[in-house]
Structure formats: C-alpha cells, structure tokens
C-alpha cells in the first residue's frame, strides 16, 4: 500500500485507451465500474477531442456481482461489435474487474465476433501503469494483426537498403505517437516533412491515425523509427526480432539529436544524406544560441523532470545547445530509468527516479534552479516555489495542447524549444516584478527589458551605493559568469531564501542582515546562498557585513 496524492501516470488500461483512441477502426470493451468512465474526459477535455474515445465500459454494479457479470461482458461485446463495427477489437478489464476474474478476453475468444480480430489485454492494474499499458497494448495489437505474416524461423532478414534494388524510395514507419503524448500530432508532421526533404517516405504512422489494416502493412517498410520509446519500444524490438526490421532509435529532439537521427537513418538505409550546414539552414536555434543576446543564458541552472524520452532530450539541449547548467535530472518512467541514469551520470548528476511529486518538488527546491522543465506537475511545484517553468512532457493539461503548430522534434521543434524555454526565464521575472513591484521607482517597466543595455539595472538600483554595487555585480557573487544584465533575468524565489541560514552553527549578525536587505530582492536569495557557502567553507559562524563583502570579493575573482 502506497500513499499517492497526485499521480504522473494513470492505470495501465488508460494506456490501452490511448492506443484505441489514437487509432481509427479500433474499439475497446473494458470491464469496469461506472466511475472509470472518467477516462473519457482525458480525451474530450484535455486533448479537446471532438469525439468520444472508442470504448464501451460494462459499468457493472455491486448488485451485478452476485449474478452474472460474465453475461454482462458478453452482452457489451456483442452490442459494441454490432454498433461500432470495429476492424479490431480490444477486450480488457480495469483494476476492479481484475479482482472478480471474469476474464473478458477469454469470454470474447469464445464468441462469434464475425471475424473481427480480437486482442485480449492482460494489463496488471496493481503493478503496472499507463505508459506500460500503452506499450503493451500497441505491441499485442501489432502481434495479433501480423500473426499471419510471421516469417518462418531461420528467415533471412530483410535488407533495409533493398529500396535501391527495388528501384523506389526508402520508406519507414513512424512508431509511438499517441494521444495524450506530448505534441505528437505536430512531431509527426515535422518528421514526415524532414524525411520527405531527404527523399524518405513514410509507410505507416502508428498508432496515431492508423487503422488496423495499416498495422498489417508495417513489414513493408525498410525500417522502423522508434519516435517515442515509452509507447513503441516493445513493438520495435519485436518487429526487429520477428521480422528482422532495423530500428532507428535516436529521438530527434534538439538540433544535435536531429542531426544524429538523420545520420543514423542514412547509415541504416545506406542513403547519402548531405547534412552539412543543414542545422543552421533549417533551424534558428544554433544562431539564436550563439548570438550575443543569449550570453545571459550561460550557466542558467535548470531542473529537468519528465518522461524518459523528453528528460534525456532536454538534458542534452540544455547543456549542449543552450549552455545551461543542468542541476537536476529525473523521470517517473521506471521502465527507462537506466537510460536516464546514464544521461545524468554524464552530467555529473544522480538521476531522480520517482513517481512521488513531493519528492520531486523537494529535489527541485534543493537544486535552486532558475528554470524548471517538467510535466504539468512540476509546473505546479514551480509555481509554488516561484520559479519559471516550461512544460516539456506528459502528463499534460489542456493548455499544453496548443492550437498553433508547435512540435518538439526536428528543426522546427528546436525553434519551438528555444522560444518556449527562454521565454519563461524572462516572463517569470517580468510578471513578478511588474505585478509586485510596479510601484517601486527602481523597478519601472522600462528597466525590465534586458535590451536596455548593461547600464540599465545598475543605474536603476537604489541611490544607496552599496546596494547598487551589489546589484551590478551580483552575477558573480551569485555564481558563474554573466553580465550585469543578469540582474533582470535571475529571479530567485522567496522559498529559496527561506532555505538558508537555519543550518547548524550559521547565523547572520544584525549588520549582515542589514547589508543583505539592501541587495535587490531578486538576487538576495542567491547572495545569501553563496555567502553562506563561503562562510561554511571557511568555518565562519556569524555572517557580518564584512563576511558578506569577503564573499563578494571571493566570487568576483
């Protein structure tokens, strides 16, 4: 038994529902009580879908339990098949039905379904979760639909370069995009375009938008692109094992990864791709990141928590393409924990693998980041801690399904990422400043734009010379290189300040406190943190104004 307040993932049957709802012509009969119909709103409200997910719930009640719930299952199946005429039928149960052991899959197998392929789903509700359920459902569905095409043992693997002999373009499958995944709809469009630019055709996209008959065409592709390992990992491995299909596993999120993705594709397909300069031509991220304006991004402390795919991608972009410092990296996807651990280790961090948002929030507070990249759970934690945040992964909320085209993958995805990560860094500050301090003369709106130039904030600081100096130089006192422009962009929340000073044997004298209070509020937390670190290092117990100045001198070296 485990206490859960908010959860990252739903139960595994919600994963199955995501597959069914993503596809066309699939219907899911779910043996479940009425309350479980809440899952519909995930699609109709969060994804803003214009139709109900294709699911029939048996909605058995307590009074049915004594009687024949199996009969109810059979009736539901018969009615669903008659009404929806599915091209493939999924049959399964939710947590409660699992306990009463009607085995709906076995019941369905004994029924005449008029030849509709049926997949019996066995998703252990008490040990597995949503993403696992989605991956398992996708895998089982593909397996059932391809069972007649299974090559005999000892078959020769199809050659991914056979397109040449066959005198046609190479073609690939894009596997994994699904509803309630992060920006899948737009990623598919972006990657389809990217492939087209390089003369590669898309054979099947699945599950999003695919019909069962499309899944039966999967083996016609030269290889599979595993776009979202959370959903498509098992399918890709199975197709590799059973059909000998090659897999491209690089996930093209970020400029570097998109390049690597193309390289991997080119190698596996034996296709000459002229990639020189493509990133610079096709994406603005490389230039925007090199431009002087972006110097203020240097060393920004960023905390990342997401599904494994997006967490790993974000860590790479943050550290290699934007020059941030990753101060925390983690995931709730236990299935991919190994990959995330490796990515964290490469950055000198220990990965946080947890599905307890309070643990994540605590780690976030301790890491004292300047930007949080997370799920909608982290958005809330960040809001509480007063930190700017961009959502980069499911679980998502209705506002994370924007009307405009906003992929994460490919060249355009990199542009979207640049904008959506850099924007909150500025907005976080502006909103708070404008909102809370609009009456303070030193924080008039005009001073909030970093385009004001280096003299902006320093000149705007209070007449008090010391505070002004502190403001002007805080970036060094704070940490890492930077310009005085940082003043505007570093916003440290009250909660971070509250973290300091209480430790054993460390206290602030009245003069120290007074000096600290003259430092503009938005850098005060950092100054406090660094001064305390300095004092601890030197075994100083009482922080006076002199210690503060010593620390300042130390950090500006």
């Amino acid at each position, binding site marked *: *038994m*485990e*206490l*859960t*307040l*908010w*959860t990252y*993932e*739903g*139960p595994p*049957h*919600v994963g199955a529902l995501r597959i069914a709802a993503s596809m066309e012509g699939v219907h899911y009969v779910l043996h479940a*009580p*009425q*309350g*479980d*119909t*809440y*899952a*519909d*709103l*995930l699609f*109709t*409200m969060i994804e*803003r*879908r*214009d*139709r*109900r997910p294709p699911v*029939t*719930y*048996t*909605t*058995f*009640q*307590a009074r049915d*339990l004594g009687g024949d719930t199996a009969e109810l299952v059979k009736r*539901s199946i018969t*009615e669903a098949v008659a*009404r929806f005429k599915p091209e493939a039928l999924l049959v399964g149960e*939710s*947590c*409660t039905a699992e*306990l*009463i052991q009607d085995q709906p899959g076995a019941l369905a197998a004994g029924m005449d379904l008029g030849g509709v392929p049926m997949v019996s789903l066995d998703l*252990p*509700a*008490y*040990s597995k*979760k949503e993403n696992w359920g989605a991956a398992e459902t996708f895998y089982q569905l593909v397996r059932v639909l391809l069972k007649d095409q299974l090559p005999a043992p000892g078959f020769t693997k199809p050659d991914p370069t056979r397109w040449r002999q066959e005198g046609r373009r190479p073609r690939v499958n894009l596997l994994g995009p699904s509803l309630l995944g992060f920006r899948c709809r737009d990623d598919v469009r972006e990657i389809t375009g990217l492939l087209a630019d390089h003369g590669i055709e898309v054979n099947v996209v699945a599950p999003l938008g695919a019909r069962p008959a499309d899944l039966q065409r999967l083996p016609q592709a030269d290889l599979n692109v595993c776009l979202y390992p959370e959903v498509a990992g098992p399918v890709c491995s199975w197709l590799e094992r059973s059909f000998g299909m090659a897999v491209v596993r690089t996930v093209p999120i970020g400029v570097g990864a998109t390049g690597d993705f193309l390289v991997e594709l080119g190698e596996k397909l034996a296709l000459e791709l002229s990639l020189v300069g493509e990133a610079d031509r096709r994406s603005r991220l490389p230039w925007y990141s090199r431009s002087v304006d972006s110097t203020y991004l240097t060393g920004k402390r960023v905390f990342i928590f997401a599904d494994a795919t997006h967490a790993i991608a974000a860590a790479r972009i943050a550290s290699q393409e934007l020059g941030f410092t990753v101060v925390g990296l983690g995931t709730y996807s236990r299935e991919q924990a190994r990959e995330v651990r490796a990515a964290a280790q490469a950055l000198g961090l220990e990965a946080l693998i947890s599905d307890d948002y*309070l643990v994540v*929030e605590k780690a976030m507070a301790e890491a004292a980041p300047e930007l949080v990249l997370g799920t*909608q*759970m982290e958005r*809330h934690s960040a809001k*509480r801690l007063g930190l700017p945040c961009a959502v980069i992964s499911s679980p998502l909320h209705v506002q994370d399904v924007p009307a405009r085209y906003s992929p994460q993958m490919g060249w355009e995805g990199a542009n979207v990422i640049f904008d959506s990560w850099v924007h909150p860094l500025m907005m976080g500050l502006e909103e708070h400043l404008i909102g809370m301090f609009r009456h303070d003369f030193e924080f008039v709106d005009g001073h909030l734009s970093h385009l004001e130039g280096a003299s902006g904030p320093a000149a705007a600081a209070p007449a008090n010379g010391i505070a002004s100096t502190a403001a002007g130089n805080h970036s060094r006192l704070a940490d890492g290189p930077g310009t005085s422009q940082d003043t505007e962009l570093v916003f440290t929340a009250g909660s971070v300040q509250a973290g300091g000073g209480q430790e054993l044997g460390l206290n602030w004298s009245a003069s120290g406190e007074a000096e600290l209070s003259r430092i503009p509020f938005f850098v005060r937390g950092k100054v406090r943190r660094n001064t305390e670190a300095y004092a601890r290092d030197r075994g100083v117990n009482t922080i006076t104004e002199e210690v503060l100045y010593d620390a300042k001198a130390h950090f500006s070296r």
Partner: protein
Amino acid sequence: MAQPVASVAALSSDGIAVPSANPGAASSLERPDLIQQNGQREVFCGLTSIVWLHRRMPDAFFLVVGSRTCAHLVQSAAGVMIFAEPRFGTAILGERDLAGLADANEELDRLVRDLLERRPEIRTLFLVGSCPSEVIKLDLAKAAERLSRQHTGRVMVLNYSGSGIETTFTQGEDNALLSMVPLMPRSDEDQLLLVGTLADGVEERLTSLFQRLGIGLIRSLPPRSSTELPPVGKGTRMLLCQPFLSGTARALVDRGAQFVRSPYPLGVEGSRAWMAAAAAAFGIDPATVAAVLDPLVERGRRALAPHREVLAGKRLFLLPDSQLELSLARFLQQECGMELVEVGTPYLDRLLMAEELALLPPATQLSEGQDVERQLDRLRAARPDLVVCGMGLANPLEAEGFVTKWSIELVFSPIHGIDQAGDLAELFSRPLRRRALLQLP
C-alpha cells in the same frame, strides 16, 4: 407548501420507500412511462464528491483506499491542482496487499500513522471505500474504529463508500454525511439544520435570510469544521440543500429530525418555496415570509429576465449525472420557459423528489439510470437546443452541432438561493448566447 413537515413514519430508513399515493403528482397517470435504462453509465463514481467536500471541511482529510484508477479519477475530476499537498489522497493497493503478502490492515495503519505525522492539522480522517476495497472486502468500518482508538484525542476516523459499484458522483456526499450522523450530539432544542454542502458565501447569505425570517438557530451539515458537528434531535427541522442525500435524510429522521419537504433551492421559485417551507415548519406567519422574501423574489425575477429571453422556447435534454437534473429541469421549465425533451437522472428517489416531480409538467419524459448509446440515439433524434451532460460527452456533442452545458460545474458553483437564480440561469444561457455570437465558417 401545503404540508411542509412529513410524518416521521413515512420515512423509514430502509431503502428507498416509494410512497404509493404521491401528493401533488396525481397527474403522474398521464406522465409518459419512465424510461428505465440499465446499460453503460457515463457517470463518475462517489469518490468525485471529495473534490468539494475537502474544501468545505479544511480540517479533514479524505483517504481513498483503492487503486491507481481511483487516484487518477479524483485528480482528473478535480481538474486543477493548486494545492501543495491536497487534503485528499489514495492509499493504492498493491500486488502484495492483494496476494495477502502484506496485511492490508497493518499497511493501512502504517500509512495513516505517517500521514497524520506529516499533517498535524488534520482532525477528521475519512477512509473512503472504493470498488477494489469493497471487492476484496477490506473492512474499513473496523479499520476506522481501530484507527480512531489508536489516535484517540488526536483525530476522529470515519469511513464511507464512494465506490463506483455502490455510488454515483454526488452520492459520495450522501455517504460522507451519513458517516457523521451517528457522531452528532443529541439535543432537542429547536434548530434549522441545513443538510448538504453549500458554497460558504451562499450559506452565509441563506443563514442571514433565515434569521430575518425569525429562525433563531441555524446549523449546517457538513459543518465548516469537521469537529463541530451540529446536534440533532426532536427540535431539529431538517432542510435539504441538495437532492442527493437520500441516506442522510433518512438517518437524520431516525435521530428525531423532522423532514421539511420542499423543492430544492434552485431558482427563484424553488428557493422561495424552500425557505417558506422552513418558515412554516417553525410556525412563522406567511405574511412575515412574504415581507422578507417578496422583494428578493421581485429582484430575482428581474435578474432572470434577460436569460429567460434566451432560454424561452428552447428544448432541453438532460443526461443523468449530478442528480440535480430534476430540480434544474423544473427551474429551467418553470422560470425560464424551456421545453423539456428528456430529463435523465442517475436514480429516482421518489420521496426526496416528490415536490419536484409535482412541479414538472405532466408530459415530461423522465429517464432513470443510463444506457448511454441508446440515450444518445434518442438525443440525436430529438435534436434539442441545449444538452446538459458530463465532461466526457460535452465536446463530442458540440462537435455534432449540439449546444451543451457540462454539469460538473453545477456542483462547484454557488447556485443556491433566490439571489443566485440569475447566475444559475446564466450558466445555461451563456452557451446559447455564445453559439449565437460566433460567426465561424
């Protein structure tokens, strides 16, 4: 109301008594047959009511003993998650609990101990049963007793079922209140007991109006502080604020309360009748009632007028969801001039609904329970102008060209009382006004 106080005898606590002769509903003979449906229900389970109950009683914690599905339901129904640590959570049963490897009761004790340590402000802990806990027959009543003993003086532990196999959506509140009834102190003093969660502001307003009418002592169940349970006894006149409190009403009658029969306080007329019924139960002279309420009624009707203009003559279809459907239908028909196509309700408690039923036009088509696909077939055939439905159905129906109002909002919004009637009507007129405003291809 002609006979505001029901005889206690008419209300036995066992099951849903259907009075044979329904006063005021003589016309029921002409009523089209009730459609009773027993198919797929598109209704949340009783766990959902935690979303508003925990706001009402800030010193209480609601611990669902269930599965990941239960946790996900409450989270999805809550929609917003602005609380650092919400005052509700789920003790998720794992394989070890089910396989008997871990003693579920010991696990629960441990989890509750940790929880109470972390949340010292909690005074009442509700153990909320779910489908899984009921199917494995985890005895939460016993657990609550045991835990109450373990934490005597610190926290009161209660239990009730919010499971989907036993309850729908708003019935969770009925069960929660029912679990508190035995703890209510006994007192025979005269008091008006408002039963059912109201928005705080609305409650204050209604209380002050009752005082103006001359009712001295007014208390509420649930109280704002879970430890300050109102007393109950012979002098208690019980006035239901919500129509979904069948079990609680019967239990309070068993404890001596007099049931004040009335339509529910939705709309100007419904709210007036509701307050007048309470006044009559205290023997307050109708002239006093008129003097206090008539100006409000007058103002309320004025507030309704613009919405009535939008709503009058429009055809309304209510799918079963919050159990408020009959009252809403009565209000929208009687006061806003809408035509009722079909009025669905998750279940029909004829006793609690007698006054509402009597006010509905004789030809109203009622339906009880649900078979969602067939009901949607009827809906499509009838092409109503406005559909009241749950969140899962709203967007799909909009996409089919219907105008909808999702009903969950109704249990979160301050809609009770004469003063709120305009706002209540606005909830229904807005989607229609919006549809008229939009000039989209």
